[in-house]
Structure formats: structure tokens, C-alpha cells
């Protein structure tokens, strides 16, 4: 299980109504259904992921997040989750705004471009980082909007978003320790629990 998914589990109440944006193959919703009896719905655009999610018994709707969440009513979900998809969106801030309209609380995880390895790569080589975690070339990548932990917190401030919890996962797939003190430098993945 991806650590960001394990980290967000305690933030979701048993039996909650959960909308997972970019739910992938349904791993998170399946876990939440099995362990927390949530009633989950996933939005996904990749055909193979949709089929796999259906096989898992996860309810999934084919939907392009870049078209917004206009089809979903205000406050119709307890929690809206989006894991590792923020950086792929055309207008990330608009989707976050929509998430906070549709759900009372939101959980967002994203790769932290402020991590020291990215900084090192850029300053040492003068080129956009390509790593095991971010394996794409800059011109052919689904990741079009990288941001750092600091960038995200500034956006939350600008949008009057409350940060309920936050955490980062470091390179050893752990959280806590030094990374807690220097999240923007040592965090590989950032995990935020936010509300209006």
C-alpha cells in the first residue's frame, strides 16, 4: 500500500461518503470500503484503470477532471480525495475550489518539487529532474503543474483554505523525523487534509 494512502486513512471517518478524483485502479476506495465501510465513488479517465476498479467492486465513473465537477452537487460528499493527480491538472486551483464545494473536507497528496533531490538535480545539471519517482521527460509528461510544499501552502492562504492536517513522506517511504521539521526539503510526497 502506498504510504500516502495509509497516512490519510485515519482522516476518513467510518461510513463516510468518499469521492476519489483520479481513483486509478480503485486501490484506496477498496481499502476504505473493506476497512472503514465507506461508500466510495471514483472518477477516472484511464480505460484499463476503470476496468480494474470495476473488477475490485469499486464504483467508478469515467470522467475527465479537467472538465470540472459541475455534475456534482454542493456538499454531496463527506470527503473528496485526490492523490497524486494535482500536478496533472490544467487548472489545479479551480479543481481544489470545486473539491471544497462538493465535499466538506478534502485530502490532497502531490509530489513535492521542493525536495532536495529535485533542487540538486536542477542546480547541478541545469535540467528538469528525471527520477524513478518522476520518470518523465519535461516535454512528454502527464505532470504539467509541479509545485512545492511551500507553493501549496501559499495557495491555501490565498484561497482561504484551512489546513486541518499535513504530513510529508520522505525518500525512505517514512514520515516524521527530520522531514517533519523540513517538509519542503525532505518531503517526497506531501499529504494535506483541508477544508473551507
Amino acid at each position, binding site marked *: 500500500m502506498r504510504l500516502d494512502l495509509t497516512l490519510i486513512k485515519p482522516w476518513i471517518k467510518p461510513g463516510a*461518503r468518499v469521492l476519489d478524483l483520479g481513483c486509478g485502479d480503485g486501490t484506496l476506495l477498496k481499502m476504505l470500503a473493506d476497512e472503514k465501510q465507506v*461508500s466510495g*465513488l471514483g472518477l477516472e479517465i484511464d*480505460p484499463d484503470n*476503470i*476496468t*480494474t476498479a*470495476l*473488477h475490485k*467492486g469499486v*464504483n*467508478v*465513473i*469515467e*470522467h475527465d477532471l479537467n472538465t470540472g465537477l459541475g*455534475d*456534482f*452537487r454542493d456538499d*454531496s460528499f463527506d470527503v473528496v480525495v485526490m492523490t497524486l493527480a494535482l500536478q496533472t491538472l490544467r487548472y489545479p486551483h479551480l479543481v481544489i475550489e470545486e473539491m471544497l464545494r462538493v465535499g466538506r473536507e478534502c485530502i490532497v497528496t502531490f509530489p513535492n518539487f521542493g525536495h532536495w533531490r529535485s533542487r540538486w538535480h536542477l542546480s547541478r545539471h541545469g535540467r528538469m529532474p528525471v527520477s524513478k519517482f518522476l520518470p518523465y521527460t519535461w516535454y512528454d509528461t502527464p505532470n504539467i503543474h509541479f509545485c512545492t510544499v511551500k507553493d501549496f501552502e501559499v495557495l491555501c492562504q490565498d484561497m482561504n483554505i484551512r489546513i486541518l492536517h499535513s504530513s510529508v513522506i520522505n525518500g525512505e517511504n517514512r514520515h516524521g523525523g527530520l522531514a517533519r521539521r523540513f517538509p519542503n526539503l525532505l518531503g517526497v510526497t506531501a499529504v494535506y487534509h483541508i477544508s473551507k
Partner: protein
Amino acid sequence: MTEQQHATDTPFGSDSVGIVSPQTLHFDQPLMLACGRELPEHDIVYETYGELNAARSNAILICHALSGHHHAAGYHSADDRKPGWWDSCIGPGKPIDTRKFFVLSINNIGGCHGSTGPATLNPATGKPWGPDFPPLRCRDWVESQRLMMAHFGIEQWAAVIGGSLGGMQAMRWSLEYPDALRHCVVIASAMKLSAQNIAFNEIARNAICSDPAFHGGRYLEHGTSPKQGLAQARMIGHITYLSEDGMKEKFGRDLKAGDLKLGASGPVEFQVESYLRHQGERFAGSFDANTYLLMTKALDYYDLAREYDDDPVAAFSHAKCSFMVISFTSDWRFAPDRSREIVNALVAADKPVSYAEIEANHGHDAFLIPIPRYIAVFGAYMSRVGEGL
């Protein structure tokens, strides 16, 4: 109970239900119809595939579309060139897997393939019903399907499944008898027809009614059939079931006969003309004109949410089953947006729903075609239906 258990030894392949034979059930008790009239007695022609399990929990109802019938899968004889209309999806190892499910496929009342309809005899007059056959609504089919359910001793369908008009029946089941189904699969359908859709149906009806052989619907008594009008109706309908790209790919501007070069004489015939004419003639030879009028009107009048203050969310709040909705990108008769309206209403009503929009250039007819992604998604959902048996 059924004949296809030995299908693996037939020349049809291991994923075919093999040779099947239709059965007929006669219902003596009157069937009260939505129009307020009663059908005093009626016959239903049906086929079944697979075995009903001891708990009678593995039954699937197939609801057919406008020109469909009971023969959904397999072959009627070893010489049959074409299998049933949904053979791509029903059979061993196919999405509606007959190794797991007991599948019931019936010809709806008002139809013309053996069940009681305008072409059968009215017991009161001894003449064909013709235009006197009671007008039907979608819910009348649900009621008659419920009689079939009782006949087989089935208390709850594992799933009710349909494409197009069949999907409308499946949705009606979920509202009228919420406890009678666990899953509802709605393919290339809509909660109501658009004005454009009704307009196409009206042109089709107009073609039939203005055929001199129509005789106000009493053509059987005159020993004729409005074949010209019926063929035209089918040709118009058929164009709307395909997509522009699909037709371009299939026919282009290819010629069946003649030459378009300057100086060439003689009649020119495009492939698409020949194809449409053939489709029209074939249909006119096997379909009843009054049934076509009746079915298109049932389609036009269908409005899922009418009696729920035109609020689809209020309508679906009555449902208790899970839903799978599927649409096809090039379907302009039952466009993806119509399916998305169904999905949105179900989400707003807090009902479990999944949705896939399949990339396909086959237009509305795509729901009959074994497009790999369609089969994969449909099969994935049906495997879930199979787990709850």
C-alpha cells in the same frame, strides 16, 4: 431445461450457447395496461440460456430494443448463418456468462416475433388486432416480464439488462420494483427521448402510414403489407443508428454499379444505397408495421421522471439496486450526454453507479458490437454481479 449444455461439441465454438429453441408461455389472466385497457390473455415467446441455480438467484432478464426479440443468443439450427442479436455479449465466457447466469430473453408484448401483438388474433373478433391493439407503455412490458419472473419462481433478478429501449425498461424495473433486482445495466439509453429523436420516429411512422398498402393499419385483413413504408422507416432509422464516420469507413463513396466518369452512361448505384435498400427490404419482410408504430410511440412517451415531478433524482431515490451505465462516443441517437444525465441523477440520489464511455465509431449500434473495451468493462461489472449469487 435448456439445450445448449452440449454446445461445446457443436460447430459454433465454445463461447456460443449453441442451438437454442424458443418456447411459448400462455397467460390466461388479464393483464391491466397503463392505458386503462386490459389484455384479456397473451402469449410470450422466450428463450433461456444457462441453468437456473437452486437458490434461483442467478437469473438475468434481457430487455430488447425497438426491433429486437427473444432470440438474443445462439442459433436456431445448424444452418443458421447469424446468431441471436446479442450473441456478442451472451454465452460461456462472455460478459453475460451462461456458465454462471440463467438468462431469460423474451419477445415483449406488442412485438411481432410470436408474442401477442398487433399481428396476432384478437380473441374478441377472431381477426388480427391490427390498429386496435392497445397502446403500450414501457411499464406494461415490465408488468408482463414480472409474470414471467413469477412463472420461473424468481424472486429477485441478479440483473436486469438492456440497451436503448431495453435500458429504459431496466431503469423502469429499478423504480417500479426496487426489491426485484440487485443490478441494473443501462446501455446506450436515456431517461427520455429528445425532440430530434421523436422527430425521426415521426418520419418513420409517417412513411408507414402513408403507404397505400397500410389501410389504416388493417393491412392483414386486406392481405397486404405496407412494405415500402416499413422499408423507408427502417432506412431512416438505420442511418440514425450509425455515425457519419462509421458510414464513411464502411461505404465511403464506393460504387456498387455504374461509373461516374464523364461520358459514362447507365445507372449509378452507391454502396450505401444498396446497403440501405437491402436493410429496408429485409426488415420489411420480417417486421410488422403496427408493431413498429407501437414501439416507437412507447419510446416517445417514455419519461422516467414524469411522475416524480420531473425530478430524476427523486425518481431514482426509489431504486435499491446498483447501476452500470455505458455509452458510446459516436452514438448521436442516445448520446453520451444522455447517459451522463442518468449517472448524475443516480449520484445525486446517492445510488451506487459506475459509468464508462466507450470510444467507438459504430454509432448507436455499437451496443451490439463486440468492441474490446466495451466487452472488458461490461464483463468486469458482470463479474461483480456474479459474485453476489
